[in-house]
């Protein structure tokens, strides 16, 4: 969506220009004692101001309207109409919910498979260790014929189980690999949401710029909140994406350890 701010610039500038020339005229008329003409000039200034203001407010309203249509904001909900389209913002929320669901599913599926494989592998390891001890006894000729027959049977069993279990673990590993397919899907969804956020930001910036023109003509000044006051230390920020670019953030466990040991931990 393209909202041009340049036309507004000229209206505001035109008004300011006419204000300057009319002010000079006003002073001249007052000095000459021509009050009738002076009042006419004041009237002209007011008219120019109103014209500019109506124009800017009109443009702002139109831009707002376009933004609402462009992002299909949920006007149905706010204006009570029954035929509201599903908004792009609501759609983006749904998409991000989908990302959360997909990553959650993949993480749990992966952990399920790891949890079912780990005891199998560990059991095989234990059995192999036990058989090796037996085998060493055989090599040292400490084994009776009966014990050897038992060992031979155990080894056969073990080999059979190894074959079966390694096939099982191998299949689990393959499933773990397949569970990573969420990366592709979530990546696509996230990229689309990023594009939407970017468009919304651009549109909002244009609206702010236009509202600025209205303020300029109407002579309104806003008190902005102090940005420093908005963040407190204990406010949770979540994972740091650019830890290397910030001085107030640690970049890893080593720095945490250093900081804590400097505090006497």
């Amino acid at each position: 969506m393209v909202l041009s701010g340049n036309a507004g610039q000229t209206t505001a500038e035109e008004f300011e220009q006419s204000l300057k020339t009319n002010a000079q005229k006003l002073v001249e008329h007052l000095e000459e004692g021509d009050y009738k003409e002076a009042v006419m000039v004041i009237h002209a200034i007011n008219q120019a101001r109103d014209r500019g203001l109506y124009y800017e407010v009109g443009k702002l309203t139109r831009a707002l309207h376009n933004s609402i249509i462009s992002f299909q904001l949920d006007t149905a909900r706010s204006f009570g109409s029954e035929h509201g389209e599903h908004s792009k913002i609501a759609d983006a929320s749904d998409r991000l919910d989908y990302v959360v669901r997909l990553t959650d599913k993949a993480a749990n599926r992966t952990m399920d498979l790891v949890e079912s494989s780990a005891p199998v592998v560990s059991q095989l390891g234990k059995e192999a260790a036990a058989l090796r001890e037996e085998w060493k006894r055989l090599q040292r000729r400490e084994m009776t014929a009966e014990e050897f027959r038992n060992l031979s049977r155990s080894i056969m069993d073990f080999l059979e189980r190894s074959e079966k279990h390694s096939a099982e673990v191998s299949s689990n590993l393959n499933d773990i690999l397949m569970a990573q397919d969420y990366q592709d899907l979530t990546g696509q969804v996230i990229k689309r949401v990023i594009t939407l956020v970017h468009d919304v930001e651009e549109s909002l910036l244009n609206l702010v710029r236009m509202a600025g023109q209205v303020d300029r003509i109407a002579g309104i000044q806003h008190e902005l909140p102090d940005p420093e006051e908005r963040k407190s230390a204990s406010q949770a920020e979540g994972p740091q994406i650019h830890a290397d670019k910030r001085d107030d953030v640690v970049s890893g466990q080593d720095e945490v350890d250093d900081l804590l040991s400097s505090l006497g931990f």
Partner: protein
Amino acid sequence: MKILIVDDFSTMRRIIKNLLRDLGFTNTAEADDGTTALPMLQHGNFDFLVTDWNMPGMSGIDLLRAVRADERLKTLPVLMVTAEAKRDQIIEAAQAGVNGYVVKPFTAQALKEKIEKVFERIEAK
């Protein structure tokens, strides 16, 4: 050794639970934020608390403060496992009486080291 794991994401609770099991700690329970964790701690005879910071309801830092303010829980060892990495936050946690601080993403080795260190210090006292 009974351990309470507090994190709002079930996958993270599961990872920590698995790592603790590998370290030989099998008696664990889970809570998804401070509000549910605190009553569990007050009635459950836990020996160790592993908590995230950023959670809906009651955050990990508030849970830590509540634990330290509770006459019966104030000596409970607390390990913070969190993505919060601001220096001010780590200092804040230290001042609130945390026993260890692990930043996410972490390795199994890092978690193991910190847990062992926490217990070493407790035994030394």
